[in-house]
C-alpha cells in the first residue's frame, strides 16, 4: 500500500512539474534540464555495463542511435497515425501522444537491447581493452550504416519526428533506470555483476554464470541507452548521424568515470555537471571546450576515483543501500 502511494505521489509530482516547468522556466533552461535528464539515463545505463559489471564499453552512442532511429521510425510510420486515431475517438491528445511515445520508446529500447545482445556476445571472448575496441567499432559502424541508409534520411538527417517528449517522460525514464540500478545492486543478480567486475575468474569459480550476466548487463544497459535515444529523438524532432559519434560515447564515459565507477548517484551527479558545464561556459565562447577539457584532466589527476568514488577502480564506492546485506538490518520500505 505504502509503495503504491509512493508511486502515485511520484507520478503526481512528475505531472505537476511537467505542467509547471514550461510556464516558469525559460525555454533555454528547460532545454538544458531535459538534456540533463537524458544524460542521466545514458550515464546510469552505461554505469550498469562499465561500473557494475566492469565490462568496458565505449560505444554507448551506437546503442543510443539504434534506439533513437528505431523509435523515430516507429513514431513516423505507425505512432503518428495511432495517436491521431486515438485522439479522433475523444481520448485527450496528451494521453494519446504519451501512449504512442511509450510504444515508440519501448520499441527503440528493445532494438537497442538486441544490438546490446549482439555486442555482448563477443564480450564472452574478449576482455578489457579489446572489448572496448569492439564496442567502439560497433558504434562507428552503426553511424556509418545510418549515414548510408536512405530510409532513415542518410546523411541529410531524419526530420519531422513528432515532438512528444515532455519532462514527465524524461522523469519516468530517469526513475526507471535509477530504481532498477539500485534494486539490482542489492539483488543476487547485482552481486553476481559486482563479482564479475571484481574478479571474473573467482566469480566463475564460485558458480556465477559469467556469460549470462555479462550479456544481461549489456542488454539492460543498451536498452536504457535506446530509451534515452528515443527521448532525445522525440525531443529534438530531428536526428542526424553526427549526433552519435565516438565523441558522444566519450562524453557518457566521462560522466560515469567522473561520477565514480559503480556509483549510481555519482553517475547522476556527473551527468548533470557535465551537461550543464559546457552550457554554463557558453559565455566563454571559444574557450569553452578548452576549459571543459582542462577541467576533465585536472579532475582526473586530482581525483582519479571520480567525484563520488572513494576507493580505487577495483573496489569502487558502492551506493549506500548496497552495504553488506545484514538480515537484521533489513526492514522493507
Amino acid at each position, binding site marked *: 500500500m505504502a509503495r503504491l502511494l509512493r508511486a502515485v505521489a511520484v507520478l503526481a509530482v512528475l505531472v505537476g512539474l511537467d505542467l509547471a516547468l514550461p510556464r516558469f522556466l525559460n525555454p533555454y533552461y528547460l532545454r538544458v534540464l531535459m538534456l540533463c535528464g537524458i544524460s542521466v539515463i545514458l550515464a546510469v545505463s552505461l554505469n550498469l555495463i562499465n561500473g557494475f559489471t566492469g565490462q568496458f564499453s565505449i560505444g554507448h552512442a551506437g546503442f543510443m542511435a539504434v534506439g533513437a532511429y528505431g523509435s523515430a521510425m516507429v513514431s513516423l510510420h505507425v505512432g503518428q497515425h495511432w495517436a491521431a486515431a486515438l485522439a479522433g475517438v475523444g481520448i485527450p491528445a496528451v494521453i494519446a501522444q504519451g501512449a504512442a511515445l511509450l510504444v515508440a520508446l519501448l520499441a527503440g529500447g528493445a532494438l537497442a537491447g538486441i544490438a546490446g545482445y549482439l555486442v555482448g556476445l563477443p564480450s564472452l571472448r574478449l576482455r578489457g581493452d579489446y572489448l572496448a575496441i*569492439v564496442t567502439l*567499432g560497433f558504434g562507428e559502424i552503426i553511424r*556509418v*550504416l545510418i549515414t548510408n541508409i536512405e530510409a532513415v534520411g542518410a546523411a541529410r538527417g531524419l526530420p519531422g519526428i513528432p515532438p512528444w517528449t515532455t519532462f514527465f517522460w524524461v522523469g519516468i525514464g530517469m526513475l526507471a533506470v535509477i530504481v532498477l540500478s539500485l534494486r539490482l545492486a542489492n539483488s543476487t543478480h547485482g552481486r553476481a555483476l559486482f563479482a564479475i567486475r571484481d574478479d571474473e575468474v573467482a566469480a566463475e569459480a564460485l558458480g556465477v554464470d559469467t556469460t549470462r550476466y555479462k550479456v544481461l548487463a549489456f542488454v539492460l544497459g543498451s536498452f536504457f541507452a535506446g530509451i534515452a535515444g528515443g527521448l532525445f529523438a522525440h525531443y529534438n524532432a530531428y536526428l542526424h548521424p553526427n549526433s552519435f559519434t565516438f565523441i558522444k560515447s566519450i562524453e557518457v564515459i566521462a560522466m560515469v568515470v567522473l561520477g565514480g565507477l559503480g556509483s549510481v548517484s555519482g553517475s547522476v551527479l556527473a551527468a548533470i555537471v557535465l551537461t550543464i558545464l559546457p552550457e554554463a561556459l557558453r559565455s566563454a565562447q*571559444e574557450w569553452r*571546450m578548452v576549459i571543459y577539457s582542462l577541467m576533465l584532466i585536472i579532475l582526473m589527476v586530482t581525483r582519479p576515483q571520480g567525484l563520488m568514488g572513494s576507493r580505487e*577502480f577495483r573496489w569502487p564506492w558502492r551506493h549506500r543501500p548496497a552495504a553488506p546485506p545484514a538480515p537484521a538490518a533489513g526492514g522493507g520500505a
Partner: protein
Amino acid sequence: MSEFLQQLINGVTLGCVYALIALGYTMVYGILRLINFAHGDVYMLGAFFGLYAARWLGAQTHPNPASALAVLLIAMAGCGLVGLIIERAAYKPVRQSSRLAALITAIGVSLLLENGGRLVFGADPKFFPQIIPATNIALGGGVTISNQQLIILGVSIALMIVLRVIVLYTRVGKAMRAVSHNHTAAAMMGISVDRIISVTFVFGSMLAAAAGVLVALENPKIEPYMGILPGLKAFVAAVLGGIGNIPGAVLGGLVMGIAEVMVVGYVSPTYRDAIAFVLLIVILLVRPAGILGTATAEKV
C-alpha cells in the same frame, strides 16, 4: 589490372601513414597499457607545426629538398616536445590510478589539443604550402605514382628502419623492451622507468608528426579536427597487427590502408570509414591477439 595496381599503390601509401601513427599507439600501449587517445591530435599538431615551419623558412617560394627536410624535422622536434609535456603533465600523475582514469585523462588531452588547436590555429581549414611541387611518374601500363607518394613511402620506410634499429640495437631500445615486459623488474635492473616512458612518448609523437607532414604534402587541407579519424583508424591498425607489437603495427597499418582504398575504389566511398571497424571486429573475433600478437594465457 592497372586500376588494381594503381589502387594498391595508393593503399600502400595510405597504409604507411597509418603505420607511422599506429607505431606511436602500439609503443605507448606496450609500455603503459594505455590507449593514448591524444595521439591522433599529435599527428594534427605535426601538420600545423610543419605549416608554420614552412612559412617561417619560406619553403614555398624556393621549394628544395633541404628546406622540405627541415620542415619535417622541425615538426618532428615540436611534436616530440609536445609528447614529452603531455606525458609529464597529464599521464604521469595518473599512472598509479586506475586505467580508466588514465583513459579519461587521455581523452581530456585529446579534447584539449583539438579545441586548443582551434583556438590557436582557427577553425577554418588551412592550406599546407606546396613545399615539393607535385609531379607524376608513369610506371607503365597506365599506373602512375606521384613524387609525393614516393616521398611518403621513402620517409616512412626510413623512419621505420630507424625505429627498428633503435629498439633492437641500442641501450634505450633495450630499456624500452625491458620496461614493456615488466616495470618493476626493469627498475631493479637500474633502468629509469620514468625516463624510458618519456622517451617512448617522444618517439611516438615524432613519428605522428612525420605522418602529419607527409599527409599534408599530398592532401594540403589541414584543420584542428583532422586527427580524430586517422587516429582511431591507426589505433585499429595497431590492434589489427597485435597491439604492443611493433612489426604488427606496420602490418596492420598497411592492411588497413589497402583495405580502405579498395573499398573506396570497388565498393562505395561512403563506407570508407566503416571498413576499418569491420576488419577490426572480424580480426578480434577470429584472432583476438591480432595478426602478429601472441595470445597470453590468463594467470589465476
